[in-house]
């Protein structure tokens, strides 16, 4: 295109422009979250119901032996707390993706996608913003859990942060990947049933896997293959200042795979968006 002489030379984007964009997207996501109080309340009530009612009821049924990272016998409430933290992030990731489907239908997604910055970066910002919102929810939950005598070591509140960011990104990317495949809003109810519940129950969130193995070896393998199990274990170990390297590797790999998948699925030249309103060629 060198024949066009009056065209301005491409000037690209500066680091400051990228950062302005990132902080703008996180800021807007935060504002939207604050405006949706009922979303915050339900995000908190859900794990608290599990903690106060389910865990209290199961305390007598399920004995937890001493397994890493715990050094003493623990109450069942203490065992499921990391699973509930991951559950908050799972719901938030899916909810963010719901909002992306909703946004796309309402046209708000267009506002984001006509930004001149690279689309992959925009979607990454969106994921980070969703993760930031999930962190608010998780720490609010941890505060209430602390009042309920679930007291991990003080430094655990800090060491769990990187684990939460990574697991938040993984679950957010998964949600985004799934949302790329949804054309109609009502299909999302199916995603809840087919993604959230199986992922949550076939994991180490509610019961240690050695117990599952006693019952059904197949279910055990399924749980081991479930990325959500590894998100839970990563958070569980990090909350006690330890690193579960296998879980870290699985979660990191899944984050990268899901994120690339989600970004490609949104890419207009290759992905699902190309199918357009009629939804044909797929």
């Amino acid at each position, binding site marked *: 295109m060198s024949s066009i002489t*009056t065209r301005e030379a491409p000037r690209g984007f500066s680091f400051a422009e990228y950062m302005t964009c990132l902080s703008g997207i996180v800021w807007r996501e935060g504002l939207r979250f604050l405006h949706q109080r009922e979303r915050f309340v339900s995000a908190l009530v859900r794990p608290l119901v599990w903690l106060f009612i389910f865990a209290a009821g199961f305390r007598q049924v399920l004995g937890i032996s001493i397994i890493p990272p715990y050094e003493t016998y623990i109450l069942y409430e203490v065992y499921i707390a990391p699973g509930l933290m991951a559950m908050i992030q799972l719901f938030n990731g899916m909810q963010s993706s719901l909002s992306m489907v909703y946004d796309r239908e309402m046209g708000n997604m267009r506002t984001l996608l*006509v930004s001149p910055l690279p689309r992959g970066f925009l979607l990454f910002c969106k994921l980070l913003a969703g993760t930031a919102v999930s962190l608010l929810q998780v720490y609010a939950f941890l505060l209430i859990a602390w009042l309920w005598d679930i007291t991990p070591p003080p430094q655990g509140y800090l060491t769990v942060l990187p684990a939460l960011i990574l697991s938040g990104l993984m679950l957010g990317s998964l949600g985004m990947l799934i949302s790329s495949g949804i054309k109609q809003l009502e299909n999302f109810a199916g995603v809840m049933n087919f993604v959230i519940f199986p992922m949550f129950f076939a994991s180490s969130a509610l019961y240690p896997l050695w117990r599952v193995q006693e019952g059904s070896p197949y279910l055990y393998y399924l749980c081991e293959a479930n990325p959500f199990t590894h998100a839970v274990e990563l958070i569980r170990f990090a909350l006690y200042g330890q690193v579960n390297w296998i879980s870290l590797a699985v979660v990191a790999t899944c984050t990268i795979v899901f994120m690339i998948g989600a970004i490609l699925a949104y890419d207009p030249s290759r992905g699902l968006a190309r199918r*357009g309103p009629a939804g044909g*060629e797929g």
Partner: protein
Amino acid sequence: MTSPAPIAEPHGTPRAEAAAVPALSIDDVSHSYGPRRALMDVSFNVQPASFTALLGLNGAGKSTLFSLITRLFGIQSGRVGIFGHDVSKSPGEALRLLGVVFQPRTLDLDLSLTQNLLYHAALHGIGRREASARSAELLGRIGLADRAASKVRDLSGGQMRRLEIARALLHRPRLLLLDEPTVGLDVKARADIISHVRQLVTEQGIGVLWATHLFDEIMPGDDLVVLHQGKVLAQGPMSRVITEAGAQDVNTAFMRLTGAQTMPGGGA
């Protein structure tokens, strides 16, 4: 009302020089949704400082074309250029010169007017201080300065559209696309928006592509592109399109060209 202060010159290229490159060039663009062909070999240009009306009935392919220009959909065949920047090859450079108002509303209803504008500015990498100054200036220009802190939800339809146009201008684009921006508005709000956009063309040299199915929004000096069932049936200055169709007015010309039996709603 105070007379509107002119907004700073868009990007700064002298107008005469810029005229060498079309603001928007569509070359042989086709698009299909599976077996259904939405656009067939569409080609036309929009010049800087011109008002080009894209006239077509609902389903003619206008919104598909807009999705291709804004890179929401991948371009299957053909080429779209914005001031010479290929939308597929260098989308960043192309999109930063483009402002767009989509047909469905795309504002955050629960955020304030200013917050909506600041969010858009951030998406274009415009720093907070600069963004605040530009937002205040544009809100003043569209007569909504006193509503800056209100929620968008509380605005009327016409005010929302004006806000969307202000938002599209925030990053000082040189090409503005509007997809049926007056649908659902009352007569006064329509007239306000049309005169505002025409002012942008004459005062700031912005190239405008205005998609519509309403004949009375087109004026004699405009360029016209008639799109029907995915094909461009006629294009050029309005007077020429009417003469070539052997008609006296746009309405008749459009009906002759498309063979339409009934008039689209809302015509003059």
